[in-house]
């Protein structure tokens, strides 16, 4: 019934204020739903891709999740160190193609300092096996040289040539500065969207050098070794936090993992980073689910508003529906009319929500970065269409309520509304 459709549109236009506000709430709900879904999937993807092409992460015996959290994300409690000798012995395993030692414990203005070797910039991969690249400068070569992650440089406004000092621990305690041994920034990495962006990279020898005159985690009073003389000391580390391992053949990963687990020198743990990252995501996944539940609740509120608006409008529309009846509209047409109305409002809400999400991704990315989200992806996430379809179906179902009431009213009213 084309005539009915045109009248439905004219009628809806006549009630545009109420319907418009309802449309707005459905649109906002759809926007929230889509944004949460996109951020969720992007976060999950960037999380899972924070390290790749590394077959094993090895550290002192601890839980796999704790080890990866500390070694890759530089978060959580230290897992305890492993001996340099143990590292040298395991790295000599013929199945191992490369290995990169990691040493954590210091920080610079809240950003973790990662002691490693220049090999780190060669072997470390993130995302889809992407190597690190330098936005400016190059890898460190001398002892007191540092390479900054993109975020560290951007936030603190550092350029190549800047001189910085490191703090012991997380920098929370006064007087725990390594201010006698300043570092020169020699390189700044391109952004990766991984914890690398938040790290300050220095050589393992540098970590040794700044702690030469420290004992038991504190400077020795009245005793200091100048930066210019550290070369005279043996700067080979005694211990490291963890090391990354790449194999010649992936198929040998479980055999190597077993060999490391059975290492005679000291108890060690070797984890497949992908497996541990999955476990880690599971443990922080409740937050994403809470967010999802919340956005569905917002949608429920929006659709309840739609039903309420339509139900409230029905009493005023009884005359209109009776007139349509007298003109030849059947009761099933009235039913269709109201379901159609809620369906169109839901559809428009979905489309506008999709548009708003895209606009948000285009223009709001900078603001989102302030919340620690690298960006709201512009691409349509998998499952978004299913989400929108679900919103649409819910909208149609919500329309059934006022439609059913209109159907009942039209039975009682016939051509002559009793109001």
């Amino acid at each position, binding site marked *: 019934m084309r005539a009915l459709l045109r009248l439905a549109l*004219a009628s809806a236009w006549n009630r545009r204020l109420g319907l418009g506000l309802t449309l707005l709430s459905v649109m906002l709900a759809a926007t929230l739903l889509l944004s949460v879904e996109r951020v969720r999937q992007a976060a999950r993807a960037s999380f899972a891709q924070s390290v790749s092409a590394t077959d094993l992460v090895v550290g002192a015996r601890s839980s796999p999740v704790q080890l990866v959290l500390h070694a890759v994300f530089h978060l959580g409690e230290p897992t305890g160190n492993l001996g340099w000798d143990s590292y040298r012995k395991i790295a000599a395993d013929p199945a191992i193609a490369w290995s990169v030692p990691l040493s954590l414990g210091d920080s610079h203005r809240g950003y973790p300092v990662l002691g490693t070797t220049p090999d780190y910039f060669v072997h470390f991969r993130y995302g889809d096996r992407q190597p690190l690249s330098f936005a400016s400068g190059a890898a460190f070569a001398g002892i007191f040289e540092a390479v900054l992650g993109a975020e560290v440089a951007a936030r603190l406004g550092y350029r190549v040539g800047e001189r910085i000092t490191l703090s012991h621990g997380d920098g929370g305690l006064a007087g725990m500065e390594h201010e006698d041994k300043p570092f020169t920034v020699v390189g700044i990495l391109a952004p990766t969207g991984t914890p690398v962006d938040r790290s300050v990279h220095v050589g393992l020898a540098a970590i040794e050098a700044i702690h030469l005159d420290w004992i038991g985690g504190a400077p020795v009073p009245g005793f200091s070794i100048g930066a210019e003389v550290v070369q005279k000391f043996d700067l080979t580390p005694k211990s490291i936090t963890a090391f990354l391992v790449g194999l010649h053949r992936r198929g040998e990963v479980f055999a190597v993992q077993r060999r490391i687990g059975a290492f005679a020198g000291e108890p060690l743990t070797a984890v497949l980073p992908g497996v541990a990252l999955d476990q880690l995501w599971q443990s922080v996944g409740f937050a994403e689910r809470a967010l999802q539940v919340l956005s569905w609740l917002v949608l429920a509120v929006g659709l309840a508003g739609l039903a309420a608006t339509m139900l409230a409008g029905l009493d005023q529309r009884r005359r209109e529906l009776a007139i349509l009846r007298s003109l030849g509209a059947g009761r099933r047409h009235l039913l269709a009319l109201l379901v159609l109305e809620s369906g169109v409002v839901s559809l428009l809400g979905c489309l506008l929500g999709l548009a708003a999400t895209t606009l948000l991704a285009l223009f709001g990315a900078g603001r989102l970065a302030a919340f620690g989200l690298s960006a709201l992806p512009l691409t349509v996430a998998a499952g978004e269409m299913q989400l929108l379809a679900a919103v649409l179906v819910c909208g149609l179902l919500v329309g059934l309520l006022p439609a059913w009431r209109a159907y009942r009213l039209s039975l009682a009213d016939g051509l002559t509304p009793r109001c």
Partner: protein
Amino acid sequence: MAAAAIRIDDLVFRWRPDAAPAVKLAKLTVDAGKSLFLHGPSGAGKSTLLNLLGGVLLPERGRIEVLGQVLGDLPAARRDAFRADHLGFVFQQFNLLPWLSALDNVLLPCRFSRRRAQRAGEPDAAARRLLAALDLDAAAHGAPAGELSVGQQQRVAAARALIGRPEIVIADEPTSALDAARQDAFIDLLLGEAKAAGSTVVFVSHDLRLAAHFDEKLALTVGADA
């Protein structure tokens, strides 16, 4: 003898099975082209009878034949289409969709029924002619119906009932919101245009004064045979 436009036999209708009959009518025949004045106090089932004639309600017992078609024999969707094709309605008030113009309100039946549109010829011109014949200024044709006076609205409603020359025009207390002088003028205009269109008119009112305008009269009494 002219064919009957409406023929009712032994009609009984109740809203609920245990209620008293809302309408009880032993026999009613209206010949094509005639006008019938249906009189009854409130609660006599006038509106219910109109719903029965329109095929919106079906009788519990008896038969209603409109233009030779027994309404009870048609499925609901066909009854709706039948109503659109052959019947025009004018109600007591609130006849119009207030956000449409007077002209668009008159054209509504042509949008719902192809037959009415065809019989109107050029619907737009037919609507303007009817509105003019019913004394509505051309200036008011394009105005939203909600802005017209009650008297103007009733004349727009009459034009809508008449467009496309439906065989039957049913009017339910269309003049009760008008003052006495305008009531007679309205009925004369309605009957005049109905006669020109060849439509049978069923006019329902509680006001016996108006009965003089019509060919035939019938009193509807509560719960009793007419």
